[in-house]
């Protein structure tokens, strides 16, 4: 069995999976797609009521939740779409220009 962790951009073709299939789940977790971001959401913790509306709206599961409270963004997977800012009823999320985490 060929594991995703053993495949990288230097792997010879003979050691890749034939159809490009991946023999394990959840491999996107380790892939940094945050670099694709051109706008970045800021979490304003003081304004947040933890209503959790932003969480299911996030297309990239980039808003972690712990013990009933949302935490700061998972910037490794947030692509900066801005949906969270749009749905937040309490102005607790603000989009700023640029991909960098401020």
């Amino acid at each position, binding site marked *: 069995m060929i594991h995703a962790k053993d495949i990288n951009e230097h792997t010879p073709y003979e050691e890749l999976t034939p159809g490009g*299939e*991946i023999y394990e789940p959840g*491999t996107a977790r380790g892939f940094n797609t945050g670099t694709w971001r051109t706008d970045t959401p800021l979490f304003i913790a003081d304004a947040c009521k933890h209503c959790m509306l932003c969480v299911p709206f996030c297309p990239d599961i980039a808003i972690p939740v712990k013990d009933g409270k949302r935490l700061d963004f998972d910037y490794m997977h947030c692509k900066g779409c801005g949906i969270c800012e749009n749905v937040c009823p309490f102005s607790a999320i603000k989009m700023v220009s640029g991909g960098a985490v401020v």
Partner: protein
Amino acid sequence: MSICFSGNEAVAYAMKQINPDVMGAFPITPSTEIPEYFAKYVANGEVNTEYVTVESEHSSMSVCIAAEAAGARAVSATSSCGLALMYELLYVAASSRLPITLACVNRALSGPININNDHSDSMGARDAGWIQIYAENNQEAYDNFIMAMPVGENVRLPVMTCMDGFITSHAVENIELLETDVVRKFVGEYKPENYLLKKENPLAVGPYDISAYYMEHKVMQAQAMKMAKARILEVAAQFEKISGRHYGLLDEYRMEDAELALVLIGSSAGTAKAAIDKLREEGVKAGLIKVRVFRPFPGEELAKALSNTKAVAVMDKSEGFSANGGPLFAETRNALFDQKERPYLIDIVYGLGGRDFKVEDVEKVFGRLKNIAATGEIGPVYTHFGHRQRGEQA
């Protein structure tokens, strides 16, 4: 057992004997009878197949892809524009390395709309990464379908078994059937190493392939197609043991001392053989090479088979619009390039949209070859045959 079957019924019966897990079914002339016969087998409880009726060929191939990825054995049948509608999915099936088996009943592509035979449908899909095996007659259509799975599942490539629409699909001939238990044993169980329904390890099929990986996967696919040649011959040898019928990549007819030869695909081989027998009686050293396997293309084998000929006509039953000859001609000329001694080679595009090709037409082609061999004057290399043109009597 000897029985009277049309080509379509022969393929449907082969499917029944194999008892595949899934069929993606959508009708199109002239392949419609295949899912039609098969629906009867399903309704009668003669097979356990999940018969999925869909809204298009794009979907019937999608069904096959999903089923095969899940770990099931999937089949379908189509023709002409149906195959064209599958185009995107043909590539997905091949590059995901899913060994689906598709019966292609060759019919002209629109437009103008035409339901009769030529090879423009499957020739248009010749670079999709599918193995392509062509039948001359009903017996071969049956045999090829039974051999397809042991070939495709071994090298992980999908297989298209082709037969000529109406000429083969609807004509009824006596064929020899194998016993069902013999077929089942020959084809065996489909046991992929990894598949979607294998609960021990969840699997992702068809993920995005960035530039750093795509080329490596194409090299693997190309290697598999090269390996398929040996596998086709291996399976053919095993098949000969159970059937007594011999199959190669090419079928050579009276080629031992042939000076003039035709290279062609499909049912026209029968017509050509009759003409060659006649010409042989008249002392003409005529022969035929029927290309049975077009993908992978048996280039070396073809060059060897043509090595002692003087003049050869490649008969293309599809146009291709390269302005440089049809697809079979391109492959044949390519195959001959490495030979020190090469025959004169011409391309004749014929039989488009069901245009008849008779014994006397074959004789006319040999007449042209005879003239070329005698004079060394090849004339126009790429021509059409059997169409009306000014200055010719009807």
